[in-house]
């Protein structure tokens, strides 16, 4: 019905309009309760659905956090075990080394002791006492002779003999003392040697003590992790994040190196595999260059695994030592061969670049510059081509750290994302709830004359049931209070829904 017709049900347009408004208000008043119910149900659906979804997401987040914690602890335990194992290996190596040298040390000390003992025994021999010739010589010298030449000669002879005997005795005494002194002098380095040997033994024992202290510390950490304490979890989480960023940075640097390496070999590869063929959308020469770099990385990875520096492939680490040694040599040889190939390719690249430049100059009609005689750029490229594969081999170390720490970091990020998602769901649920109230209140506001009239009529009869607010929602299915925390949400989820 057109508006003009609607306004012409009476001769007065205003009256017609008022009649229509009254009819509309009456219709709305009668539809009020069904509308409240419908709106309440609708809002409750949104609210409940969102809360249930949020609860599910939060439950998933909880499980994820728990799983992250388990993974973190497992990784921490493995790392602590590794550290303790390494310390034990070092102690074992030190003990084996010292014990290996122990028989030698014992023999050395024994020999030194025997020598010292012998020297001591020899040094203990007291030199013979000097005969007391002096009084005899003096008494003989004091004998007065009567001038008889024979007596004089005899006395002189006795004097001379005695003097000689005395001199010889003194010489003997001196030489005996000198021998004792030389024995004592010889003993000095032996004493020093003994002291040094004993110091070495002391150092070894001190070193073992230090290692034992380190093991105690690691064992304490291990115990903390095993007990799954919050301190251990925080420590491991922080360590993982640090490792993630540092290893990520190193990997980015390695990526730059790989890119330079790629540019070094991509052009000469076209000389080998052709520059016009394609694999998919990529040039075959580019793919070939990339494959070489990836093989180098793989070889580096295997080399590091074989050396037990990384543990990405447990099967390699658990090989017996002989096989592992073979693998080390094989991977190292392949890496060296690839480095040689790259070096040759770098040389070829330089030549091709020179040739292309010469052609460009010819085509441009430019007088060709004399060929550069310096070999420095060529040698530089060759050296770079040789070194980069070995440098890239070490990527395995940050890669392992990145892979192991990224599990933790991804777990943390995923838990955060789930938390945010749950928050958004709860927010939508609450918005739905309050939007429903707003719509109902707006509806009542629009039809307030009818409600007022109802109040007047029912008030006059004394049949008011209670406050208006209560009655407004007595039929509306909207709960008065929005549940907005996780505990209530979970409890709400457990409750049987109407």
């Amino acid at each position, binding site marked *: 019905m057109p508006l003009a017709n609607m306004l012409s049900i009476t001769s007065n347009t205003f009256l017609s309009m008022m009649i229509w408004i009254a009819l509309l208000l009456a219709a709305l008043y009668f539809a009020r309760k069904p509308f409240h119910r419908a709106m309440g149900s609708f809002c409750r659906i949104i609210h409940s659905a969102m809360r249930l979804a949020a609860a599910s997401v939060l439950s998933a987040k909880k499980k994820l956090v728990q799983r992250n914690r388990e993974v973190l602890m497992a990784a921490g335990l493995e790392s602590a075990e590794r550290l303790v194992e390494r310390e034990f290996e070092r102690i074992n190596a030190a003990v084996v080394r010292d014990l290996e040298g122990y028989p030698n040390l014992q023999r050395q000390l024994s020999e030194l002791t025997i020598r010292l003992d012998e020297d001591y025994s020899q040094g203990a021999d007291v030199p013979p006492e000097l005969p007391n010739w002096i009084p005899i010589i003096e008494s003989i010298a004091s004998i007065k002779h009567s001038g008889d030449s024979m007596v004089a000669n005899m006395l002189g002879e006795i004097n001379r003999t005695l003097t000689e005997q005395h001199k010889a005795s003194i010489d003997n005494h001196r030489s005996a003392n000198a021998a004792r002194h030389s024995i004592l002098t010889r003993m000095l380095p032996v004493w020093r040697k003994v002291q040094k040997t004993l110091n070495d033994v002391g150092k070894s024992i001190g070193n073992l003590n230090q290692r034992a202290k380190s093991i105690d510390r690691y064992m304490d950490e291990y115990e903390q992790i095993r007990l799954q304490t919050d301190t251990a979890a925080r420590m491991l989480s922080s360590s993982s994040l640090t490792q993630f960023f540092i290893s990520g940075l190193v990997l980015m640097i390695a990526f730059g190196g790989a890119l330079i390496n790629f540019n070094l070999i991509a*052009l000469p590869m*076209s*000389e080998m595999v*052709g*520059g*016009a*063929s*394609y*694999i*998919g959308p990529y040039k*075959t020469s580019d793919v070939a260059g990339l494959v070489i770099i990836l093989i180098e990385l793989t070889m580096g990875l295997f080399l590091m695994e074989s050396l037990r520096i990384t543990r990405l492939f447990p099967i390699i680490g658990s090989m017996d030592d002989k096989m592992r040694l073979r693998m080390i040599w094989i991977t190292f040889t392949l890496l060296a061969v690839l480095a040689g190939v790259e070096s040759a390719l770098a040389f070829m690249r330089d*030549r*091709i670049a020179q*040739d*292309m430049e010469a*052609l*460009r100059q*010819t*085509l*441009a*009609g430019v007088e060709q510059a004399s060929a550069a005689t310096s070999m420095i750029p060529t040698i530089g490229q060759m050296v770079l081509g040789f070194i980069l594969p070995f440098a890239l081999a070490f990527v395995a170390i940050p890669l392992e750290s990145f892979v192991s720490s990224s599990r933790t970091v991804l777990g943390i990020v995923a838990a955060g994302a789930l938390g945010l998602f749950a928050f958004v769901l709860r927010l939508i649920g609450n918005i739905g709830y309050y939007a429903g109230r707003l719509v109902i209140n707006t509806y009542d506001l629009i039809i307030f004359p009818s409600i007022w009239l109802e109040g007047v009529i029912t008030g006059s009869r004394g049949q008011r049931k209670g406050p208006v607010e209560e009655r407004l929602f007595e039929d509306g299915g909207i709960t008065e209070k929005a549940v907005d925390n996780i505990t209530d949400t979970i409890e709400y989820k457990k409750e049987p829904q109407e």
Partner: protein
Amino acid sequence: MKKTTAIALILCLFIAITGCSDSKSRSKGVYMLLDTSGTYALELKKAQLILNYLLGVLQPGDTLAVARIDTGSFSEKDIVAKVTFDERPSYANNQKRTFQQKVNSFVSTVKSSQYTDISGGILQAIEYLNEQGSGQKYILIFSDLKQELAKGYKRDIPFQLQGFNVIALNVTKLRADNIDPKKYQSRVTKWQGEVESGGGTWSIINDLENLDHIFAK
């Protein structure tokens, strides 16, 4: 056993999908027609510049041919030089040097022809490039686009130019064009219509500074 077979199958599939070396479909085939009629023969120095540019940008696996437009151009004899560059860059460089020498030799010894059979040249170019099987086909017409056929020559055959890019280079204005520009416009429009009705794309490059527009599409 099943696992191995599955891996082998996946590998085969991967190779089948990605391993096909479709070098032909990516290669460029360029056929350049040089107008040697009348006074336009004097413009051939510019053609040398264009050829040098082409030699600089074409890659291993691409094809390049230069043919003259004379009285009867629908003939292999009019091809001055042709080459498909080797896949190895160093060989391709040597081929480019040889090609340049051939073209230089031609330009220095060329004699003006009496008539201008552009249509015959285009037909020959279509045949040659189709035979080479290049992925992207370019016909460069270095001419003033004024066709003059000798008596008895018939060139009322529609061109089959699907997948071809026809580019007119250095389309000089003749004295008559200066008097009545409509002649120039109608000449260009005529060729454009013939090319586009044959399924090809048409463009003109008169400023040789814009040679990079040749392969811009």
